[in-house]
């Protein structure tokens, strides 16, 4: 009975949403039918938000990156903070458990050795991704996540790895502080927080797009260390069965 009510209710609300969203007189742009001209994005794409700036406004080839890090860099700063807080939270919550993990299995030789090779590759590709965030798809977050996955692999394969969490904490804090400092430097040089105070260079170059790559690298490092932290904290309290 309960489930039926649940289904009915969900379906009812869903139906109402559908009918309202896609009804004839709805202004909502149906799937794929919108035009870029009607959104603020057209200025992002054309890089013509601020006509007084040196063109192109951002040297980032990846427009998504230019939005994420430059036009809406503030969101990114917030999102990094969210991740930071949740990493802290996981640590705090896990701190209650206070028990070191031991796996029921013993990592074998193949895993041990294979890991050493693969981790390097993963780390490097991760770093590559966030360093080239302004040029190619990807960026700080995917890169950071890859770094995190590398460390997950290390956790899984090596019991002794778990001692270096403190280093991540420092890295995390440092990267975060640097992001803020970059923002503040922008404030003091350009008058705006997160102002792009570096030259944009030429689109397509690695050293282009002003502070975008700088920030994205910092974000990548931060995300990587945070993800690693989260994972590390999860391992702390694993209860032995």
């Amino acid at each position, binding site marked *: 009975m309960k489930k039926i009510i649940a289904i009915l209710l*969900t379906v009812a*609300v869903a139906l109402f949403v559908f009918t309202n969203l896609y009804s004839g007189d709805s202004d909502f742009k149906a799937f794929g039918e919108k035009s870029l001209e009607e959104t603020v994005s057209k200025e992002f*794409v054309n890089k013509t938000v601020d006509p007084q700036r040196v063109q192109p406004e951002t040297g980032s080839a990846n427009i998504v990156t230019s939005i994420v890090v430059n036009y809406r860099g503030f969101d990114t700063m917030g999102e990094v903070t969210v*991740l930071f807080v949740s990493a802290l939270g996981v640590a705090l919550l896990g701190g209650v458990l206070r028990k070191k993990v031991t796996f029921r299995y013993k990592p074998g030789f193949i895993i041990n050795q294979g890991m050493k090779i693969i981790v390097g590759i993963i780390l490097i590709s991760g770093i590559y991704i966030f360093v080239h965030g302004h040029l190619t798809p990807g960026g700080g977050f995917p890169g950071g996540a890859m770094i995190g996955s590398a460390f997950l692999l290390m956790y899984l394969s090596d019991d002794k790895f778990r001692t270096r969490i403190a280093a991540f904490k420092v890295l995390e804090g440092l990267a975060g502080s640097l992001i803020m400092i970059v923002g503040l430097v922008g404030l003091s040089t350009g008058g705006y927080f997160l102002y792009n105070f570096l030259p944009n260079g030429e689109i397509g170059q690695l050293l282009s797009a002003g502070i975008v790559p700088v920030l994205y690298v910092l974000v990548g490092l931060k995300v990587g260390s945070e993800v690693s932290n989260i994972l590390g904290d999860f391992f702390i309290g694993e209860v032995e069965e």
Partner: protein
Amino acid sequence: MSQYLYIALMFVGIYGLLSQKNILKMIISLNIMELGLNLFIISTGYIKEAKAPIILFGNEGNYVDPLPQAIVLTAIVIGLGVTAVALMLARNIYKTYGTYEIDEIRGENDD
């Protein structure tokens, strides 16, 4: 149209929240809902026959809307953070009450 499916997916998540009594299942439901939502966000940026918004690829002008992509990036990360906290909470609940079933949790919120 696939956008319908995304909204439907969101409601599937909500249905999960409505009907599930297991904490882990609820976390999964939340994730399903967020997934649907993220897909919906992405879909609002889709433009027919437009390309990824990367200038180097040479599709001058004819890009899909990049803003939803930026937003979804943020949304995903936030979802990740929430899920991490949720999982940790689930572990603490299990540690404290020895169960993941909501009905079996005793000793909270009773006055």
